[in-house]
């Protein structure tokens, strides 16, 4: 009997491991703490403004400013206010100056503070010379919760590593308990996925579409281009580009400026196409822009749909995965709850009922009564679609690099390094094409139909097995039907997932070269009594299956596998087969 208690030791609990863990957790806590402090300081500064006095003020001057040598814009304001008998002049819009990449962003602020208008500004009661027009929200401080999470993880990890009286035997059953509560977690995970998708889908696709539809009624107004260029945005991922056209137009005798080209936001790769658009606008005569009749400071040059908008649909993939995952997890939980008589470690064979015949064992363990027709979990069409998808993805990605290599040869400047690097990948690509052809030909192979006495066979049990081959049986040289049991272990190493298989039992049930015996027949399927029943967990499986093989000369062979369920021996008195995990 193996016993483990709190006084035992564990090889994963060395001093070195604790020191490495401590460094990681210290980094978590340190970086998180630094960012938290910066955010909290900014939030406190903002909060301080809420103690300043609100005072009437008059806007003297307002315009969009641009510092020399900079391509960013900022609101320039000048206003006067009175404290006591003294009049002061203020020039601050917010406490900390803000810069905007787009002219229209700064212009939208200025539009709210036209010269001569009466506004409210906020004045420092101790030093009235300091005032601002806009108090920024202190709720910004809530952003600190995110880096604070890192601080808590770091602090919690350090505590867990070094707390006094720390146990050295780790619980194994905690994982089982967590798994039994996994449905809510799974739904929560996929809900986050869906929310993140919506979070990007709304600004990147839904809002632009709404704005485009709304702008279809905006009147066209003559406008003049002030400057036009392609703006570059560089970061560690490379450079992207956006159209930057500043134009002015007149409404009711008032001149406005805007730099909104269309309703899409952000930037993308491809400089040339954007430069062509800018050049076309710079050359254009009698140019019009479309102006919002309710707010003439809002205008747009292009209010149509474009193909690039489809990129905004990419987050929809996250929405689909998230919503699909939530539905899938919920359905799986319901299915699990419905399988009242079957343990969830016992897989269900993929079958369809042949005819209803009561079976004592089925009554004991639950599930449909036999006999049943077995179905291959991965049909021939499934295999074909699988290899087509793989080949398309592999060769699609490869083609991007291959085109570059081929162009090098066409230009007379071959890139030999790239070419040699691509050779093994191209060979794999050819193999995938071959695999598609192979599976395509295999579609026309003869098909087997296997019928067993019951969908679930107990260890030591035996049931009749009927086979029937449809199609041109005479093409098959040798037909074999094999019963096998195998272990399958799935594991991760780094970022890759591997599956190892080991066949521990194999028995040939049928082997014939006589075409007349191939077409149909019956045998007995006996499961040994001293072996392991079917078992299915997330990473480890025991799979029992029947494999039909048919050798065909100069053609893809028949090879179809049908899983069967081998159950533990039934308990005496027909007791149910175990507890759920």
């Amino acid at each position: 009997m193996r016993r483990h208690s709190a006084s035992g030791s564990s090889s994963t609990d060395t001093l070195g491991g604790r020191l490495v863990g401590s460094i990681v957790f210290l980094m978590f806590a340190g970086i998180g703490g630094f960012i938290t402090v910066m955010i909290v300081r900014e939030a406190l500064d903002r909060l301080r403004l809420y103690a300043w006095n609100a005072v009437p003020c008059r806007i003297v001057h307002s315009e969009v400013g641009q510092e020399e040598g900079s391509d960013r814009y900022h609101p320039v304001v000048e206003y006067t206010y009175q404290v006591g008998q003294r009049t002061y002049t203020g020039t601050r819009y917010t406490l900390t100056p803000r810069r905007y990449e787009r002219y229209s962003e700064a212009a939208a602020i200025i539009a709210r503070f036209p010269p001569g208008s009466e506004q409210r500004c906020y004045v420092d009661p101790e030093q009235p010379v300091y005032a601002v027009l806009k108090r920024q929200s202190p709720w910004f401080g809530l952003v600190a919760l995110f880096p604070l999470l890192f601080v808590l993880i770091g602090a919690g990890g350090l505590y867990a590593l070094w707390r006094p009286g720390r146990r050295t035997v780790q619980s194994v059953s905690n994982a089982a308990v967590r798994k039994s509560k996994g449905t809510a977690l799974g739904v929560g995970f996929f809900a986050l996925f869906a929310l993140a998708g919506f979070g990007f889908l709304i600004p990147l696709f839904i809002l632009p579409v709404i704005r485009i539809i709304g702008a279809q009624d905006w009147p066209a107004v003559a406008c003049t281009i002030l400057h036009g260029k392609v703006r570059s945005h560089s970061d560690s991922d490379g450079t992207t580009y956006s159209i930057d056209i500043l134009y002015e137009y007149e409404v009711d005798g008032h001149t406005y400026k805007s730099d909104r080209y269309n309703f899409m936001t952000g930037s993308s790769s491809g400089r040339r196409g954007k430069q062509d658009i800018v050049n076309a606008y710079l050359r254009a005569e009698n140019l019009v822009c479309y102006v919002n009749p309710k707010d003439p400071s809002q205008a747009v040059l292009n209010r149509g749909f474009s193909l690039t908008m489809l990129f905004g649909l990419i987050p929809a993939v996250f929405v689909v995965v998230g919503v699909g995952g939530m539905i899938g997890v919920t359905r799986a939980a319901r299915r699990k709850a419905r399988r009242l008589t079957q343990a969830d470690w016992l897989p269900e064979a993929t079958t369809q009922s042949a005819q209803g015949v009561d079976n004592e064992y089925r009554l004991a363990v639950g599930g449909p009564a036999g006999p049943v027709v077995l179905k291959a979990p991965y049909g021939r069409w499934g295999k074909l679609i699988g290899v087509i998808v793989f080949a398309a993805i592999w060769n699609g990605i490869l083609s991007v690099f291959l085109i570059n290599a081929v162009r090098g040869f066409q230009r007379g400047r071959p890139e030999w390094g790239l070419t040699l690097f691509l050779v093994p990948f191209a060979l794999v690509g050819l193999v995938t094409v071959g695999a598609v052809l192979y599976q395509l030909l295999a579609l026309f192979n003869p098909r087997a139909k296997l019928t067993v006495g019951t969908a679930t066979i107990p260890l030591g049990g035996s049931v009749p097995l009927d086979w029937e081959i449809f199609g041109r049986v005479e093409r098959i040289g040798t037909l074999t039907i094999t019963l096998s049991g195998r272990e399958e272990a799935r594991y991760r190493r780094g970022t890759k997932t591997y599956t190892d298989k080991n066949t521990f039992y194999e028995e040939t049930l049928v082997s014939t070269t006589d075409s007349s015996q191939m077409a149909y027949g019956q045998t007995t399927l006996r499961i040994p009594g001293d072996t392991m029943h079917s078992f299915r967990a997330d990473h480890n499986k025991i799979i029992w299956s029947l494999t039909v093989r048919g050798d065909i000369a100069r053609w893809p062979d028949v090879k179809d596998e049908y899983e069967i369920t081998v159950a533990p021996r039934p308990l005496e008195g027909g007791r149910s087969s175990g507890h759920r995990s």
Partner: protein
Amino acid sequence: MTGTLDIELDGGQTECRPGEDLTGTVRWLFDDRPDKVELRLFWYTRGKGDEDTGLAENLTFESPAPSETRTFRFALPNGPYSFSGRLISLIWAVEAVAEPGDHVARVEFTLSPTGREVMLGNRSA
């Protein structure tokens, strides 16, 4: 909270058969009253694949005192059997967990019709 936690199966029972009762005793001695002491009947896998676990039954001892001895009885399920192959082993265990402090004690046993682990050798018929 510091102290000791221990599990003992009656009669040193380690070879069990499906449907049998598994009985034993849990003892703990802590310097403070634990919030919760849980006893779990479960299986887990060892071997090449990532670990899987399955909970068969869970007992919670209500209002635990700092020092106590409690008995337990589990009706063993029909499976999965304890087995060992080239890639996978499946192990049954009873584990006691006391909180706070994650104090853990575990005792392992085998579950199969013979009471012994099913050995998966490579064989053909």
